[in-house]
């Protein structure tokens, strides 16, 4: 059975960072997708969910872009992610995502403040008022899309794959208009912050759409 989430806005920034940092984050069965030799891709995504089985909530997902699994006869994904840290604004959302998707979470509620400007959308992520990360994404032309992504998870119970379809209006570009600020906090402890690019090489903004998860696939049990 599919699980559907409705969103008002989703912003994603894709940033260069060293492959050696990516490999320290990834489990051995996943390979980083390199932008250049030695340069992998860190991604920060902020969701403003307005419809879900656990009500409206905000979510921040810190990920490494990895090689997708491609099988003959199956739909080709646009790309694949390994989310290594997720923060949610509600406990219900957190418990739901851990139980259903095995996503690794920061176990306290985070705050997400959306900052809307004429042609940008920003998200300031905090923990009890302490800043964790700030992401700003610039607007480009809007197109309706329906795209498949893969998400890989690993916890003490095993390794998993979720196929996720994102539908909605999308603005995608490489104008380097966005910005990332990562703060020195345990939330970001796996990153060498100084080695993560501050300007995204790609920015994606989606709005007024739905995110649909296929049933979780188990790749490996503990």
């Amino acid at each position, binding site marked *: 059975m599919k699980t559907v989430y409705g969103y008002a806005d989703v912003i994603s920034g894709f940033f260069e960072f060293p492959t050696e940092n990516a490999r320290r984050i990834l489990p051995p069965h996943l390979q980083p997708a390199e932008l250049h030799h*030695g*340069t992998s891709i860190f991604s920060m995504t902020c969701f403003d969910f307005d419809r879900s089985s656990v009500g409206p909530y905000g979510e921040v997902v810190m990920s490494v872009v*990895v090689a997708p699994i*491609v099988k*003959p006869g199956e739909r080709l994904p646009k790309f694949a992610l390994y989310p290594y840290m997720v923060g949610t604004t509600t406990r219900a959302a957190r418990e739901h995502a851990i139980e259903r998707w095995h996503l690794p979470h920061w176990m306290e509620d985070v705050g997400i403040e959306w900052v809307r400007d004429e042609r940008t959308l920003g998200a300031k992520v905090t923990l009890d008022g302490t800043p964790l990360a700030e992401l700003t994404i610039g607007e480009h032309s809007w197109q309706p899309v329906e795209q498949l992504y893969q998400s890989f998870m690993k916890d003490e119970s095993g390794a998993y794959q979720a196929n996720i379809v994102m539908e909605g209006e999308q603005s995608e570009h490489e104008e380097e208009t966005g910005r990332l600020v990562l703060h020195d906090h345990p939330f970001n402890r796996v990153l060498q912050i100084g080695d993560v690019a501050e300007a995204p*090489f*790609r920015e994606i903004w989606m709005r007024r759409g739905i995110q649909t998860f296929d049933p979780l696939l188990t790749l490996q049990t503990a």
Partner: protein
Amino acid sequence: MDPVQGKDPGKSTFAEYDYSNFYYGAGDDPLNLLGPFSDWWREARPNGYYLYSEALQSAPATRVQVRNGKTGRVQELINLASYNYLGISYRPEVKQAAIDATNLYGLGASGSPILSGTLEVHRQLAREMAEFKDKEAAILFPTGYSANVGFIAALMRSGDYIILDQYSHASIVDGAILAKSNTLWFRHNNPLDLERKLNKAKGKKLVVVEGVYSMDGDVCVLPEIVEVAKRHGARILIDEAHSTFLFGPNGRGVAEHFGLDNEVDFHLGTFSKSLGGQGGFVCGSRDLIDYVNAFGRSRFFSCNLAPPVAAGLLAGLRIAAAEPELRTKLWSNVAYLRRRFAEEGVDIGKSTSQVMPVMVNNDARVFAVAEKIQDRGLFLQPVTYPAVPKHKSRLRVSVSAAHTEEDLETAVHVVAGVLREEGIIR
């Protein structure tokens, strides 16, 4: 099988994917990506990708006979796509030199340059290339690609640092990969970011830049790059693929243009651009060339340049050296086209060279624009993601000294007319 199986049957999907989507694919078989790629390619090719690799039926001169990749019909087109910046490759004396060399040596060198494949014509070409660049010595490579790959890997090792402009040519990138060095990337033509990256580098450091960047036609900000690199004790390699024979008082390249010939450590280039031939070279001290001769594996383990090609290049080099008016004519053509494009409102980005990107900035429509332009008589290819950033799609114009003002005026009319019809410009 449709690569986006599960979507509406009959719905076009080729624009949703590009080459970058078919590079990475985990799974249990390296052939798993072939099926999705073939499905996509079957749709992408008739929708515009056929414009790549259309077969020329004539010399890459200013007018070419091209077999249309979709209709199969042969069209005569004004050529704005080939390098041949000085219009040399099809000159009678170049063709005669190649014919004479074929008669003397036959088809190939029949050996590696370090064993049996060095012929007298290779020695002469290297000698005269070194003289042209005012260096002690030069070494030849089978292609420009192999020059970068072979030279970088000959010099740099695991643990060293190679710092590259983010728009570096694939051959530079692959050279860095083969060298197994730490690779850092600085923002395009940005000395401040180069400084940030050099601050992270230790030990042996090599900064690599290009004289003219091949997709944007902008010139390296070499004085600032040299200043930063020197301050950090880094060596500098300049790839003058698109600038040798064109820039500088003697045509030696961008380093000469800025008066920095002796500040740059390594001078590399190709014979395929301005001379319209094939092959690469590195110029420098005798000691450097002797070392590269010993450790440049892409050359060491390749057959040497075919003698007709080497002889043709030698004739072309002599023409380029003896006829500076060719450079004058090229720059006059470049100035003319720049002015006319500006008058028509055609955006050519930051180009200040003979390479001019006609910016379309619309990945979904660049192929339709390119098709229309070809139908109206111009040979000009689209360039789109991932060769350039998303939504920075363009048509890449190569200006030649051999173009007439009439050729260029026709090009302006066609390009501006199509861009206007398509709503790209007003």
